[in-house]
């Protein structure tokens, strides 16, 4: 399989502080890849830089084209989509308008089909389509953020902490949906602190610590790695989060 997204030797800095150092990763077609790591490891920074929200030093290619000269809007048009940590919904607009805007860059006819797909994936959104996005519960907002991203028919969906602040039962729901995306032909790059849940649905994983990748491999190998088990899965083995 050819790489859909490939990032090599990426550096991201905030002023003089280098938050991401010499990171290389790739995501193939129809693959779910996760980046796990503790708070402050640089995961969100890396995703934002791949999207073009932050400047990235290094080489990034998406679907075979160099992304360096493209700004965020062009990357969206190329099929790269980010569901950011804070969701960035249009709070004073209703669910339907939020979704409609997700299809801003694609033709109207395709958008109609996207609506159907998203409503099948998240029936809750259909029930609430006239409700203002800002009045939705946290879980519904996350669904809307993912739905809005999927409206644009992306090739690669980047999810930043989709489980953040959500009840376990909703987290399970969201992760099940992420698994379903693969069947719909969407690749996923997932950034998570909930390492156990992420490793269960992912094909491959990278472990990030202090701005660098310290481990990479198949999700199975990473899950059984001693160090990862101690640092990232330790709590959850006892906690039995039910996912």
């Amino acid at each position: 399989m050819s790489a859909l997204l490939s990032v090599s030797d990426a550096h991201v800095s905030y002023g003089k502080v280098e938050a991401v150092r010499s990171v290389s990763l790739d995501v193939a077609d129809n693959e779910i890849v996760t980046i796990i790591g503790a708070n402050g490891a640089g995961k969100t920074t890396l995703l934002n830089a791949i999207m073009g929200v932050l400047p990235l030093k290094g080489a990034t290619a998406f679907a075979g084209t160099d992304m360096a000269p493209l700004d965020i809007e062009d990357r969206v048009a190329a099929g790269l989509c980010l569901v950011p940590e804070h969701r960035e919904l249009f709070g004073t607009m209703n669910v339907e308008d939020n979704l409609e805007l997700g299809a801003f860059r694609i033709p109207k006819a395709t958008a109609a089909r996207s609506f159907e797909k998203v409503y099948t994936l998240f029936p809750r959104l259909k029930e609430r389509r006239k409700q203002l996005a800002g009045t939705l519960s946290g879980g519904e907002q996350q669904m809307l953020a993912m739905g809005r991203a999927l409206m644009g028919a992306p090739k690669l969906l980047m999810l930043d902490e989709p489980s953040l602040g959500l009840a376990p039962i909703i987290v399970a729901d969201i992760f099940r949906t992420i698994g379903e995306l693969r069947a719909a032909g969407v690749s996923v790059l997932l950034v998570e602190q909930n390492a156990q849940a992420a490793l269960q649905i992912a094909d491959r994983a990278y472990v990030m610590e202090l701005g660098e990748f310290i481990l990479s491999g198949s999700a199975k190998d990473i899950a059984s790695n001693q160090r990862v088990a101690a640092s990232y899965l330790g709590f959850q083995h006892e906690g039995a989060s039910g996912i």
Partner: protein
Amino acid sequence: MNTTIMLFLLQDGITNGAIYALLGLALVLVFAVTRVILIPQGEFVTYGALSYAVLATGKVPGTAWLAMAMGLVALALDLFDARRSLRLKRVARAFALNIVLPAAILALAYGFASPKAPIAVNIALSLLIVAAIGLFLYRIAFQPIAHTSVLVLLIASVGCHLALQGLGLVFFGAEGLRGPALSNAALTIGPLRFTGQSLAVYGLTIGFIIALWLFFGFTLMGKALRATAVNRLGARLVGIRTTLSGQIAFLLASLIGAISGILIVPITTLYYDTGFLIGLKGFIAAIIGGLVSYPLTAVAALIVGSVEAFSSFYASNFKEVIVFTLILPVLVLRSLAAPAVEEEKD
């Protein structure tokens, strides 16, 4: 108090208020989408009005040349921005928008320049000229600093106002001008006489408000503009170009300003600097609406217009003072009611 006088004053106030409403709505729109407090709104009024008046005398106004010059600068900026990836399509688009458009407007202005040109043509031409100026003003002055704070944008806005006002003096001279009326028809209801002009003011204001409502509520582009206002990053992440939203906001604002000017100039003599004061009254209405609420702004504009009419009758020396004092209790109330908000960073 005499009822007839009161009705006259009210009628006068509502006519003025309708104009302020248009300007106030444009200010709210521009602020919501770009965070720019559009001080040069008044110059759009002056430019629209005086370009129309000059065209009516059969001459080509200097503003047509200004649009051309600004287009050249905008093209240079576009090419500089795109220097790393100079694709033919991009260059062609920049050339069409920044050179072909103002050149076509200039050519049309020369083609139609005659004292006998129909009023509709002159109106269309002045609208086109001012719309182009508004578009390029955003490209030149605000797009490069779109990410900065509200304060920086405000300072740039004041700078644009001063520059445009100075250019207005060059183009139109210190003498005031008046333009021909849109219609000489009149309608009498009871003691009130409605001129065609004031009916045009009402009609256009209501028409514009409905058009804006339809645009923002039901079109994808209108929703995209709202989205940019609500969440700039969110808008970019779905592929909405904030520069495009900014351009459309400025285009609408300059159009609204120019239309207001064309509506006023047959009623009162306008000078190169009159627009500022008119724009400022629209600004008061927008502030009363908290720079966010369209309906509140429209209502506040009608109140501003009425207060102005009554105070010019009873205390004409203090007319402006009374109108601008309106803003004080509103600011005090608003600052008491609203919690302190840190400026949003994005």
